[in-house]
């Protein structure tokens, strides 16, 4: 379909310029260029992503654990519960470090995230759920500090900023592998096969 559409357009373009005998195989002559050139400044308010491995993209600003507790109680506690231990809507955000070989694994920012800046990136882009992207960078740093403090990963007197998050070594840093599939090699057995796990 793609190639068909392209060749149709190529043929039309060739016809327009007066029956040139060789049909261009490149798309460049056929396709309009309608993008409006912009600068990175134009997109600065959208440019909220953080490369969490090294903190590239973390903004200026900072926050303390104590400030974070205030932010948390105002913005987060109604869903996530007091002290981030779980509330009416979501489960705990504290604990679980060392649970990755257990069942269930307890998944929290402390136990699961390989890089500390993930919590900043996610909170800034998506939280609080009823007013995302409404908090200041200082507030996001502060609430990040508070959650990591509850997980025992940040001391109570810490001032958390971009350098601090980039330097933190998370417990699950080495907990990830990239896709190894196909990891299952089933056979196309047709008779005398091992039954599927059913009660029959």
């Amino acid at each position: 379909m793609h190639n068909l559409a392209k060749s149709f357009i190529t043929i039309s373009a060739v016809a327009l310029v007066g029956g040139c005998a060789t049909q261009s195989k490149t798309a460049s002559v056929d396709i309009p260029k309608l993008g409006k050139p912009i600068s990175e400044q134009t997109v600065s308010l959208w440019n909220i992503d953080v490369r969490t491995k090294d903190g590239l993209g973390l903004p200026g600003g900072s926050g303390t654990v104590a400030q974070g507790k205030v932010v948390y109680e105002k913005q987060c506690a109604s869903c996530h519960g007091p002290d981030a231990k779980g509330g009416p809507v979501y489960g705990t955000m504290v604990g679980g470090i060392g649970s990755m070989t257990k069942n269930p694994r307890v998944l929290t920012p402390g136990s699961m995230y390989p890089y500390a800046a993930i919590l900043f990136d996610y909170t800034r882009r998506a939280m609080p759920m009823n007013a995302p992207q409404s908090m200041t960078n200082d507030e996001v740093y502060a609430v990040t500090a508070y959650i990591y403090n509850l997980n025992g990963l940040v001391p109570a007197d810490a001032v958390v900023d971009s350098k601090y998050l980039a330097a933190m070594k998370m417990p699950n840093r080495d907990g990830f592998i990239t896709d190894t599939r196909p990891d299952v090699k089933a056979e196309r057995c047709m008779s005398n096969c091992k039954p599927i796990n059913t009660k029959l």
Partner: protein
Amino acid sequence: MNNADKLKQSQTVVKAASKELSANSSISHNPKRRALLGRTLAYAGAASAAGLGAGNALAQSLPIPESNRTMGRTIPPEDYGMPSKYEGKVKRRRTDVFVNRQNFSDWSMTPLAQQLGTVTPNGLIFERHHNGIPDINPDHHKFVIHGLVHQPLEFSMSDLMKYPSVSKFHFMECSGNGLTDWLKPSSKTVQQTHGLLSAAQWTGVPVSTLLDEAGLLKEAKWGLAEGADGSAHARSIPIQKLLDDALLVYASNGEMLRPENGYPLRLFIPGWEGNVSVKWIRRIKLGDEPWHIRSETARYTDPMPDGKWRQFSMEMEAKSVVTSPSGGMNIRPGIVEIQGFAWSGNGKVRTVDVTLDGGRTWREARVEEPVLDKSLTRFRYEFKWDGSPMSIASRVVDSTGYVQPTVDDITKVRAIVGFVQHNNAIQPWAVSSSGEVTNAQFG
């Protein structure tokens, strides 16, 4: 004819109608069957009424349908056609197994047993949102390419719709499809077990066209796609895939996307887990490495037996499921036609086999054309059921030679703990001697 005779005649018609219905329909979905029976009985009633009026109708004659004898409803000046009121049960449904305590980050599922072709009607394409469905005016929507490019670019919707478009048939499946049914048969119907699966003809602009226009720097190896919704949902995608077959899509099945499916613009990544096809897309930023954000570390990753997590498991591996007969239906002895869907994120469907004895023996099903790359493909298999209990299932082999595994095969190499993605296991349905079909996925 006296009144008693007339009554007797009308009862005969009713009986004949019921008998005919049971003869013609060896498979029925309970609620639907009841509705159909109700309609047949209503026609029978109409027949007897017609007979009374004409005075000479034969008991064996089909009645003249009421619709032949009246004007239809008027043609409105303008309209958007909706399904028949008799199809009111065909709806997307949220899972009844895993109940979220909010209505914004959740999912609803496609009624696969009622999907009769290889595309899903737009109003039934499954949903997965991370913070509800945004309301975006296409006149105001902007799409931006920036980061490691020669020239950052901004596009309006009207700009994008002026580019040469392509239309492709592809399935889309959520990586979480089947997550409630790894180890026990929690879901009752195929909508609940497999309904995070849909297919459509997707229309849009190849991402490569726009990346070419912006000019990729040689360091650009990954793109971060980000949505304009309340979760700003984002995923890192390797540049090879963006250049290969990724589309910026504005239409499905011939019309602009529905709001819940990304209106006015979404990414579409053929064959890969649904959440990388970022809806309501506002930008692609080019970088030299993946971002490792929450949705590719703490979410959408697969637990492994050694305590680790596998990430960037993008391709949806080959899978198939019998949609009829399936959980919640009833069958009766006689010829039964098995129907279902097969698909692969790595290519085309090569063969589909079915088993009637819980996987001990398999026979090849008929695969229905068209068989397209990374698309839903239908299969059929007829057999005569003698009324003995049985367990039926399907198994696909795709064009790479990959054979759909059982849960047992998968649990040997992965950990099934908690909220586990990428369940492409064979789905068994049990049929009791009374014809009742139930989920038999006892992993």
